[in-house]
């Protein structure tokens, strides 16, 4: 093809092209095995990988929280970044746990100056609530974070993603099908969104396996560098064996009532869809639903979200057709993800992003827990009764908004602390997407849903007003004095569409 011929092509300026073909370089002739050991993305050390990414002061780094309390990635990476002299970084994790307390020193020495996360616990949360950071922490839901990453509101320069298995080209997964053990975290749904959108992606793995590591959570075309590290997480902290069923009679009563509410409201039918939280009462609700499904011979089309062994067991006995798993909560769930072809791994975007039709929008019902619920049905899952941060937004507002019936379960009181109160300390999920509140001492239906209240009454379930539940709690434990806060804002809480729904202030202990 001659350059001059270009002029003879009509509309050539409208056809995207890269000029005229001028040959290719030498084609490789060595074997796959030879290439494989020579040309790959594995770098000798974390330090090499950090340098290769071109990370600079002021940039944003990200992490996933699939290793939960057993995570050893965040601390090792940030230690290394501090050692290499980086400053002024934004740390955007899908969530943080008590194990991340060492970040306190890196905040004090200026390595980390801003944090985005779904939640915060332990000593780091305590100190943040007491004013550790200059710039407030931004709290987003799992769906809100996925949306912010896609829209660019949260731009990730470098993602450091721990993976229990990875091949030399970057196909990474939360378990391994190869011989020989590794740690397992099951689904890596939250990490998928980071891998897709981050400018540079580094996989940190404790187990390099042969190419191609199929099936994968993260495909190689999303990955730039790979580092082998002996220790990326402690299996004991990542997940426990099986999540146990509660024996607490209060929780069992709440669970039984929640199951009855779902049935009476008309959302329990052949082919329904559901999501269960991992709290005691919501797990127990699954057990009551299971009995009802067997009795009436009906099946669930799909279960969504954080998946537990209970859901996996119901899938294996044929009661749930499909599982959409963004995060596996226990080893039984992780095992099922590995073995069952219809137990499917999904990304945070697919799970809950408001920017696209997400799986949460197909939910019939969701069972959600709460620290506090107020008389406007607003829910707090982020700050404790003393005003200190001690929780995570998770998918709470995403699923409450998406599900046709959102059921919030909580004991009426925890010790002396009432759970139904005048005004929640922090609004995480607005009352406008909360439909039913189930406590051990009664059920309340949001006045927005009079048809639900009517159906519950018809089924013989006593429906209280939320005010009546609040009064019951107060009669028992007294009216609490309000938490004292200072003016200073230490946390900004985003609703799932990334509008600011509330702020968290520094607690006042003077």
């Amino acid at each position, binding site marked *: 093809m001659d350059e001059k011929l270009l002029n003879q092509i009509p509309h050539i300026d409208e056809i995207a092209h890269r000029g005229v073909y001028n040959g290719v370089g030498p084609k490789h002739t060595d074997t796959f095995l030879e290439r494989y050991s020579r040309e790959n993305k594995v770098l000798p050390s974390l330090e090499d990988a950090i340098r290769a990414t071109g990370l600079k002061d002021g940039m944003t780094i990200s992490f996933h929280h699939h290793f939960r309390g057993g995570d050893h990635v965040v601390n090792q990476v940030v230690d290394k970044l501090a050692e290499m002299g980086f400053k002024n970084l934004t740390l955007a994790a899908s969530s943080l746990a008590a194990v991340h307390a060492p970040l306190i020193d890196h905040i004090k020495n200026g390595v980390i100056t801003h944090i985005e996360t779904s939640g915060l616990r332990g000593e780091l949360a305590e100190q943040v609530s007491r004013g550790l950071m200059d710039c407030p922490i931004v709290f987003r839901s799992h769906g809100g974070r996925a949306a912010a990453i896609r829209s660019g509101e949260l731009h990730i320069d470098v993602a450091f993603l721990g993976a229990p298995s990875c091949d030399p080209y970057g196909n990474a997964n939360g378990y391994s099908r190869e011989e020989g053990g590794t740690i397992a975290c099951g689904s890596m749904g939250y990490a998928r969104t980071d891998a897709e959108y981050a400018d540079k992606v580094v996989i940190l793995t404790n187990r390099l396996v042969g190419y191609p590591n199929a099936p994968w959570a993260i495909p190689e075309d999303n990955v730039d560098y790979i580092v082998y590290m002996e220790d990326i997480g402690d299996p004991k902290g990542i997940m426990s064996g099986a999540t146990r069923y509660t024996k607490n009679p209060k929780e069992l009563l709440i669970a039984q009532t929640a199951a009855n509410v779902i049935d009476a409201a008309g959302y329990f039918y052949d082919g329904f869809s559901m999501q269960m939280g991992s709290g005691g009462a919501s797990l127990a609700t699954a057990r009551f639903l299971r009995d009802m499904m067997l009795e009436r011979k009906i099946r669930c089309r799909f279960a969504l979200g954080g998946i537990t062994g209970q859901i996996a067991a119901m899938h294996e006995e044929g009661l749930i057709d499909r599982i959409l798993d963004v995060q596996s909560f226990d080893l039984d769930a992780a095992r099922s993800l590995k073995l069952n072809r219809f137990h499917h791994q999904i990304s945070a975007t697919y799970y809950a992003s408001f920017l696209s039709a997400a799986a949460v929008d197909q939910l019939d019902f969701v069972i959600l827990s709460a620290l506090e619920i107020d008389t406007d049905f607003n829910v707090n899952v982020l700050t404790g*009764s003393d005003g200190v941060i001690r929780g995570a937004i998770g998918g709470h507002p995403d699923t409450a908004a998406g599900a046709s019936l959102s059921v919030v379960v909580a004991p009426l009181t925890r*010790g*002396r602390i009432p759970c139904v109160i005048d005004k929640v300390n922090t609004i995480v999920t607005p009352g406008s997407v909360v439909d039913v509140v189930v406590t051990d001492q009664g059920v309340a239906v949001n006045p927005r849903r009079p048809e639900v209240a009517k159906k519950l009454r018809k089924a013989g379930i006593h429906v209280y007003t939320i005010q009546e539940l609040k009064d019951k709690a107060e009669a028992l*434990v*007294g009216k*609490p*004095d*309000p938490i*004292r806060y200072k003016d200073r804002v230490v946390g900004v809480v985003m609703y799932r569409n990334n509008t600011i729904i509330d702020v968290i202030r520094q607690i006042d202990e003077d």
Partner: protein
Amino acid sequence: MQLKKTAVAGTMESGDIMITIEPKDAGGVDLDLSSNVMQQYGRQIEAVIRETLSGLGIENAAVQAVDKGALDCTVRARVSAAAFRAAESSDYQWEVRK
């Protein structure tokens, strides 16, 4: 009620309060209260303790209270029990409470 010795009632279990009462000659009631719900209920717990003591006719005492989220009825019961033990008295005034 005349306090004769140091006495204790209650436990450190969740939902309970541990009260230690020590006799004192003068100076009113010294109260050292700690609670896991201090911000929300500290004021009310203190009021209930002082009210219960004055109801028993105790004007001077050193009281240590370690609260783990006890309800008012529990606080009253533990303070009364500690006071009767400190007074070496079993002259309980039983009554029906509503």
